[in-house]
């Protein structure tokens, strides 16, 4: 830090200050572009969709008659999927991250695993759909079920969770581990009692990112057997199901403008679910943030 500060002081002159201001303006602009796009999107969707959302819309099944159409089965399907994906991906993802970061020997096998996980994060989602179709749907005979969809999405988000959890763990200073061990803690205790709590905020951020990606995915679900129309809600993990993005996809491509409005309304509901999910995660993160400071 000290060297950076002195070097800044040495070079600061009028030209440097000017260029600093230009960069600052550019950076603010860059932030605004993303924000503006989001606002435009939200306003457009809200204008055509907000009026459609009422209790019948939330509680009805899909229909060929727009006035009768609702999103109950896909909404329930999405909530099930998210619950299951969280349940599956969080322990496995964080567990893998802890192993790779804290316990794995630094050898070739570990580095092969690390490279592969990094590459998996960039694989197009439809490939995961094909994998889910081959492994869960066919080989393990789970069929067109919630479980197939949830496991497929779990594979999809695992790399994101592993990578960001590792980063969070790496950011915990080495002195914390050494300190704990110097006081007589075993390595496991050091990780669970000191390192992990400090890393929770970062881990939660990664999990939010991963789950937010999963909730909007359509392609892998379609390939792995999500139904676009079911007039019942799943009772158990092996039932057929639908999900909100699949429903939105269907409505958006219909020729009748009434369905476009329904699609907008369903997008708003999906956004609502996403934001609720994220705020819960952020609440948890903030609790830990305060605890560890």
């Amino acid at each position, binding site marked *: 830090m000290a060297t950076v500060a002195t070097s800044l002081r040495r070079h600061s002159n009028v030209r440097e200050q000017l260029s600093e201001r230009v960069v600052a303006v550019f950076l603010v602009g860059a932030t605004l572009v993303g924000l503006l796009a989001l606002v435009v999107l939200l306003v457009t969707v809200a204008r055509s969709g907000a009026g459609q959302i009422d209790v019948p819309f939330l509680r009805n099944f899909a229909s060929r008659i727009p006035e009768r159409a609702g999103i109950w089965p896909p909404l329930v399907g999405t909530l099930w999927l998210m*619950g299951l994906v969280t349940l599956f991906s969080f322990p496995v993802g964080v567990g893998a991250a802890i192993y790779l970061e804290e316990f794995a020997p630094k050898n070739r096998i570990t580095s092969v695993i690390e490279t592969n996980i990094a590459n998996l994060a960039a694989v197009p989602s439809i490939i995961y759909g094909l994998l889910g179709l081959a492994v869960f749907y066919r080989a393990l005979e789970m069929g067109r079920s919630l479980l197939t969809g949830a496991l497929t999405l779990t594979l999809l988000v695992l790399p994101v969770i592993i990578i960001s959890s590792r980063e969070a763990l790496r950011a915990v200073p080495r002195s914390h581990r050494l300190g704990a061990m110097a006081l007589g803690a075993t390595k496991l205790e050091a990780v669970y009692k000191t390192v992990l709590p400090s890393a929770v905020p970062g881990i939660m951020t990664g999990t939010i990112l991963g789950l937010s990606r999963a909730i909007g995915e359509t392609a892998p679900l379609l390939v792995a057997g999500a139904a676009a129309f079911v007039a019942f809600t799943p009772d158990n993990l092996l039932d057929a199901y639908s999900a909100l993005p699949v429903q939105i996809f269907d409505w958006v*491509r219909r020729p009748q403008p009434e369905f476009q409005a329904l699609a907008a309304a369903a997008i708003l509901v999906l956004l609502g679910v996403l934001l609720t999910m994220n705020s819960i995660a952020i609440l948890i993160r903030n609790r830990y943030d305060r605890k560890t400071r």
Partner: protein
Amino acid sequence: MRNPTARRVAAGLLLTALLGAACGNADTDPSSSGDDGGQSISGSIAIDGSSTVFPIAQAAAEEFQISNPDAQVSVGFAGTGGGFEAFCAGDTQISNASRAIEKDEVECLEEAGIEYTEFQVAVDGLAIVTNPETDWVDCITFDQLKAIYEPGSDVSTWSDVDPSWPDEELKIFGPDPDSGTYDYLAETVADPDADEPATRDDMTQSADDNVLVQGVQGEPGSIGYFGFAYYEENAESLKALEVDDGSSGCVAPSAETVKSNEYPLSRPLFIYVANDAMDQEVVSEFVTFWVQNAGDYATAVGYVETPNDVAAENEQALEGLAS
């Protein structure tokens, strides 16, 4: 997981999942039909396949379930090819298709020992549309369409197609190669003699027909093609061309000309039903229900009902299955 609330929530979730899995194992066979006491039929039907046929299947399933609340019909849209894959693997009892079944798919079903019956449930017209400002053309021939859409075509202005048309830029729109509509135009008009028919790819392509509609609406001098329903919903801002297949003169697309097969660019939409599945009451009732009301559901979602002789054929096929 230090605080008790978080622990309780986690435990609850885990328990739900385990219970769910346990219940699920008791009834893993998706095609098992329950007892059929009372009027309402129970049991589940899995349908997948063409996204074009999907709205009709949804309409039929919706109505069927109103009178049979215990029946569980699920409909997917993995595409015609993906649908047949699942059908051949025995995952579905009904497969929707926007084209007739192909040779390799027939072979797959033969190998798997799955016998099937084909029903035509609707007709989908293909509209050739231009921007309404395009006032020099009302009718287009197959040859002209081929000149515009064939692979490697270098047509870039209207006068390239027909010297009597103005020297104005021709902006071409069409669905992307994953779509059945693309295949249909490629096979029928653009590239009929090739082993794997295609259209030119240096044009604006989209998998979403609504995007094509907007493109043609917004660009003077544009031409595009998509399902007749998309034209009908936007008829005031689009112009549908009459089509001449070279033998029967110019025919405008309409529900009547598509149904009577006078309009040359129309394709049948099918469902394929596994014969064995028809032994289950829920499947046979549903198929009968759908096929006998096919015209209503087809028109309700924007397609055209099948000609009368097809309806008679369907009726015969149903009787054949019942006996």
